[in-house]
């Protein structure tokens, strides 16, 4: 632990560890400050990740993976299950182990890491320039200097606000989530189930992700707009009671997932935002693990280059925004539009769509054809989508 680093990363989740690792690999001195006692705990996540996506960035280790899933079912409000025909390769991770390992990889490249450090403010020089952070360690106020601060501090990202970047989410752009890890349930561990229904999860969906044949992450997200008077916890208790009445609850976690338009401003002078803090999760699915690792990698590279070039101004750091946009911006925008369209479907429309799709030959029930059918049989939706695409 030194008093000055090239880069201080606030938050030890996948985004923070990835940014730290990629900067440390380029020879920068990096410190990660994690507020919780442990890296990786609590797990506020459904833990599902696509196999192809993960393998683009990392070589998966067996100990990261609780279960491998091969198929997905989309379940309509009336219970009609649509099975996606093609192979859906995915993992249900063990995030405690996974996050711990990602941090370890950053450490192996030389990053320092501390837990139980609560960052409460940015440090600024006499001219007001950001030059580090102030934090409490075991209740004691401390400071550390850096040339760049990277905020990977999660959905609440208070640090960004202190830096002057607006990360406040509108209610329609956050999914309010609760998840229980439950035992004593009977499952086919090859299947992930997604329930779409305004009764079960308005403006969102319920997920059942098996960790093995009798253990699953069961959770739901509902649009922040629909969380009152009944809240996510009420919907989840009801779902588990009706679908898995014998379940024993081993874990209960709450969380908010940004399902928001992309942030066009992710940097300011000597400061960068990454991961959920930068609203980088996929707005349609809420999935964010691979996207955080990806963005973290770009963020760490740009930070290291900026330091090498002795220019950590906003103008220089904007390269990160550009590279992020080139890599995933268009998919993000499309996913946000899709989210708006899908969550506008009524339960009747969802049911009719499911019936139509199930009349297709099983081998044609690909995700693409499912979405196409959903759109084709809802003219209202098509005109809406055309409008969004033309706007």
């Amino acid at each position, binding site marked *: 632990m030194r008093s000055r680093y090239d880069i201080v990363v606030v938050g030890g989740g996948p985004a923070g560890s990835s940014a730290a690792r990629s900067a440390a690999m380029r020879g920068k001195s990096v410190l990660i400050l994690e507020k919780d006692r442990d890296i990786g705990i609590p797990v506020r996540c459904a833990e599902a990740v696509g196999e192809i996506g993960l393998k683009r960035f990392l070589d998966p280790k067996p100990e990261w993976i609780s279960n491998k899933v091969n198929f997905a079912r989309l379940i309509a409000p009336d219970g009609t299950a649509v099975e996606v025909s093609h192979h859906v390769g995915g993992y249900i991770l063990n995030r405690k182990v996974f996050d711990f390992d990602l941090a370890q990889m950053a450490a192996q490249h030389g990053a320092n890491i501390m837990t139980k450090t*609560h960052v409460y403010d940015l440090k600024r020089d006499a001219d007001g320039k950001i030059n580090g952070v102030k934090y409490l360690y075991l209740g004691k106020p401390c400071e550390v200097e850096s040339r760049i601060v990277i905020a990977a501090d999660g959905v609440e990202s208070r640090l960004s606000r202190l830096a002057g970047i607006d990360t406040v989410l509108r209610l329609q752009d956050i999914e309010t989530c609760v998840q229980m890890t439950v035992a004593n349930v009977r499952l086919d561990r090859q299947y992930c189930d997604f329930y779409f229904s305004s009764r079960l999860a308005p403006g969102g969906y319920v997920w059942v992700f098996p960790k093995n044949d009798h253990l699953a992450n069961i959770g739901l997200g509902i649009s922040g707009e629909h969380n009152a008077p009944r809240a996510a916890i009420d919907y989840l208790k009801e779902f588990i009671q009706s679908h898995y009445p014998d379940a024993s609850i081993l874990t209960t976690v709450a969380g908010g997932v940004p399902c928001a338009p992309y942030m066009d401003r992710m940097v300011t002078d000597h400061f960068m935002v990454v991961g959920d803090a930068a609203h980088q999760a996929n707005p349609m699915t809420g999935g964010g693990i691979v996207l955080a690792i990806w963005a973290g990698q770009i963020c760490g590279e740009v930070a290291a280059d900026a330091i090498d070039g002795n220019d950590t101004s906003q103008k220089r750091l904007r390269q990160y925004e550009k590279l992020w946009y080139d890599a995933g911006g268009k998919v993000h925008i499309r996913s946000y539009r899709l989210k708006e369209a899908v969550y506008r479907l009524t339960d009747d429309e969802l049911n009719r769509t499911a019936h139509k799709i199930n009349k297709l030959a099983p081998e044609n029930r690909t995700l693409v054809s499912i979405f196409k059918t959903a759109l084709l049989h809802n003219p209202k939706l098509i005109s809406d989508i055309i409008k969004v695409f033309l706007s």
Partner: protein
Amino acid sequence: MLNIIHEICDLCGTCVSVCPFDALELFENRLKLKEENCTQCLLCLNVCPLHAIEEDSE
């Protein structure tokens, strides 16, 4: 005034992320309300997944 029910709060930060007035903060494993910033817009109460924020009757 708003009342945070700490026995229910899971420290997930969902309320912090929607507060337009920076009136909420997760501070050392405890959700804190900065009353001087709070306008009682109730967004936090409406978005809490667990009903951990309530309106104080007083």
